[in-house]
């Protein structure tokens, strides 16, 4: 190990997470965070974001779909403060949320809200994506989490 690997006691610990099995369909979603991008499979024919991803566009039935980056902005659609230790994971209590993306009505993600006191959570508040990096075998996975969007707040 190099001398740069000395643990930083002030850095937040990355929690245990069950990671997704990567496939050709979902790989971009779970790995594009390496470049700071949130990517969804999108139909090249009609522009529909197809999530969770499937081979055929559910709107126009085109098979011409490709990963497409979105803004990473979202609004908090709903949330729960989870107190139950279901499994090893983030420190209890932690926030499970559904965020909705501005790119398409009803395009939502289940996620965790981080960097936000629980008492500050308000449905409808502007959020932005932040990624949590996990290495597992050959896979570099970036879990998309959401935090309050300070730019949207200031505006």
């Amino acid at each position, binding site marked *: 190990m190099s001398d740069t690997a000395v643990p930083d006691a002030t850095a937040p610990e990355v929690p245990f997470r069950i990671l997704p099995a990567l496939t050709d369909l979902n790989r971009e979603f779970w790995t594009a965070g390496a470049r700071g991008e949130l990517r969804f499979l999108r139909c090249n024919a009609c522009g529909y974001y197809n999530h969770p991803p499937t081979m055929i566009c559910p709107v126009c039935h085109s098979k011409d779909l490709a990963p497409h980056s979105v803004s990473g902005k979202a609004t908090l659609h709903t949330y729960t403060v989870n107190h139950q230790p279901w499994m090893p994971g983030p420190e209890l*209590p932690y926030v499970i949320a559904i965020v909705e993306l501005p790119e398409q009505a009803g395009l939502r993600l289940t996620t965790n809200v981080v960097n936000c006191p629980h008492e500050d959570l308000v449905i409808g508040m502007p959020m932005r994506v932040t990624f949590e990096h996990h290495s597992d075998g050959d896979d570099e996975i970036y879990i998309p989490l959401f935090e309050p969007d300070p730019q949207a707040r200031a505006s």
Partner: protein
Amino acid sequence: MSKFVEKSTVISGIGQSDIGRRLFRDPLELTLDACLAAIADAGLTTKDIDGVATYPGPMSVPPGFSGAGVVDVQDALRLDLGWWSGGIESPGQLGSVINACLAVAAGLANHVLCFRSVWEGSAQGTKGRASTMPGGGGGGSFRASGFMEWTLPFAAPSAAPWIALMAQRHFYEFGTTREQLGQIPINARKNAGLNPKAIYTEPMTMDDYLNVRMVSSPLSLYDCDVPCDGGTAVIVSHVDTIPDLRRPPVHVDAVGTALRGRPSWDQFDDLTTMACRDAAAQLWTRTDLTPSDVQLAEMYDGFSFIALAWLEAMGFCGHGEGGPFVEGGQNIARDGGVIPLNTHGGQLSAGRLHGYGFLHEACTQLWGEGGARQVPGNPEVGVACAGGGPLAGALLLTTHR
């Protein structure tokens, strides 16, 4: 004859095994106890049974979720079947019973034995529900796929947070409160006190409810049903067999099975309701009866909020009006309520018999066999509704046609 073929079917008998928090009994034994009780209750013998239906069929994961499959029962009772079906892909747990109605109406069978058995209490032992969650053992090389790909990486493995997310959205849009939602578990506990087979029977106050530990806000421990062991069975028969039955049956007046939104816990178009919205709406297109004709409602309460969603979906109040409707508890009270709800204690207090308990109780009440918990006034119309999230199936039942 009506074009709605379910009207040619009846519930002719019901049965239940011993029910307990943890019985440590053979799940097939519990299943067969329920099946034999239902067959006898109908006044039939195993020789009369020519169809079998179940939910979800054989499953080893999660532990205790399924006590037996169709072929286990067929072989154990040496049944000769003209039709059979078991599986988890159906309009909720009672979708299996609705399948049976359709098979009977189609002439494939005259008497279909329908069952659902669970042994989740014993299977979970003292380790709790989390022990049965995917990846609940904590790590190794397990990777999430399928629907769980979108929840497990976020430490959301259970329907508790999924339903909590819906409840919170309902609270936000309509101003629903925990004090309102709490009437559903409090009402259930009150009714369970009159049910000798219920798991939890000691009275629950609003203070008890508001002070118990939180699971996933706004849902606390008392908003979650209680895992148990037990089997439940019902017999679906053709109306032409009524002369062969032990007593006048309960008629199936209408069923609802629709699935119109996305079959997902987070992508559904309106997270303040569930698939029950569409199944219930469909049911009312298949009958001349209306919600105001219904005298009792046995509605899935795997989590309290699901029962609230069913109350709204079935039209006992408007969408979003569930909170004020249940406030104070009078409207859903067994004795004198507008619509007595979960008169046996529901899954919240009588045990997670997983859908079938509601149909069993609706029939018990319509036959006037509720004993201490009997709804007064000889009720003649009731509903049994089961399923949460993308699962929903409902039956409208009457004592006459």
